[in-house]
């Protein structure tokens, strides 16, 4: 049994691999990495949104379904000024071979860059490794980074469970709506649904809010409107 101040082996392993954990609303950690499209810096994406996502390993089945699903939403993301970039702890050669395999066997072209993070530099910077699942593979992480390179949302999924593209699209649509209209979005929001006004912070503002035309208010702090 470990004494006071001593770590168990599991705790020690967790401490070794979990170096970084980015925070929402702060600048996304910068990096330069080898990818299937050459050496890329995060700053190369300044001016557009970016979905940076990790997968556990090339040539594995769930990851393949996810790559196909990401490819399927890429055009829609581009129309939203949003780029895609994948990552796993595999070599560029493995990535290239896998992408070519997906094209040949599944008939799907993978057009987004994939980071070959063999030294785990980006994975550790972004807290992509969950030692409880694997010390050598990234879990299924998604980082939504805005045009100013601020980290706006994170999704973490386990190795076993493929991600949902509808939710990733919905998330970016919601964030872009928030930025454009200074509103919040309620649970299960979809484009076209009513949005939420941020709650008033003073008594006077609360009184104004409940008397404001064009709003649907249950109470002073809970008001929705159409865009």
């Amino acid at each position, binding site marked *: 049994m470990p004494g006071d101040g001593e770590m168990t082996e599991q705790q020690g392993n967790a401490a070794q691999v979990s170096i970084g954990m980015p925070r929402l609303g702060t600048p996304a950690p910068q990096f330069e990495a080898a990818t299937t*499209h*050459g*050496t*890329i*810096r995060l700053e*190369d*994406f300044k*001016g*557009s949104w970016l979905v940076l996502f990790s997968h556990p390993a090339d040539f594995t089945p769930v990851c393949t379904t996810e790559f196909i699903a990401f490819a399927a939403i890429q055009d829609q993301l*581009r129309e939203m000024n949003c*780029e895609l970039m994948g990552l796993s702890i595999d070599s560029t050669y493995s990535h290239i071979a896998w992408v070519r395999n997906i094209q040949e066997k599944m008939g799907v072209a993978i057009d987004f860059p994939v980071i070959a993070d063999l030294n785990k530099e980006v994975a550790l910077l972004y807290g992509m490794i969950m030692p409880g699942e694997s010390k050598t593979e990234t879990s299924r992480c998604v980082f939504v980074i805005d045009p100013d390179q601020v980290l706006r949302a994170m999704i973490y999924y386990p190795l076993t469970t493929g991600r949902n593209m509808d939710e990733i699209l919905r998330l970016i649509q919601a964030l872009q709506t928030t930025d454009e209209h200074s509103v919040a979005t309620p649970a299960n929001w979809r484009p076209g649904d009513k949005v939420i006004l941020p709650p008033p912070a003073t008594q006077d503002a609360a009184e104004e809010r409940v008397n404001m035309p064009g709003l649907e208010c249950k109470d002073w702090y809970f008001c929705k409107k159409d865009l």
Partner: protein
Amino acid sequence: MPCIDGDALTPTGRQLLEALAEPRTDEEVKDIIGQRLFRVRISLRELMYAGLATVERGRYSLTDAGRAKLEEGRG
């Protein structure tokens, strides 16, 4: 999107060098060659590392070596 393959220019590399016939921003280059902006930035960086382009106040232009490289292919 490699621009240089050994000593030779790829078609993309040539397209980029031609776009830099006069000083341009990365956004202007993107509009000329029709590539995603991040890809343009990667390629411009590659050209700079190869000594074929330079940047000043956000505008990219050809170096003497870049102009020579462009002429090479035309010869």
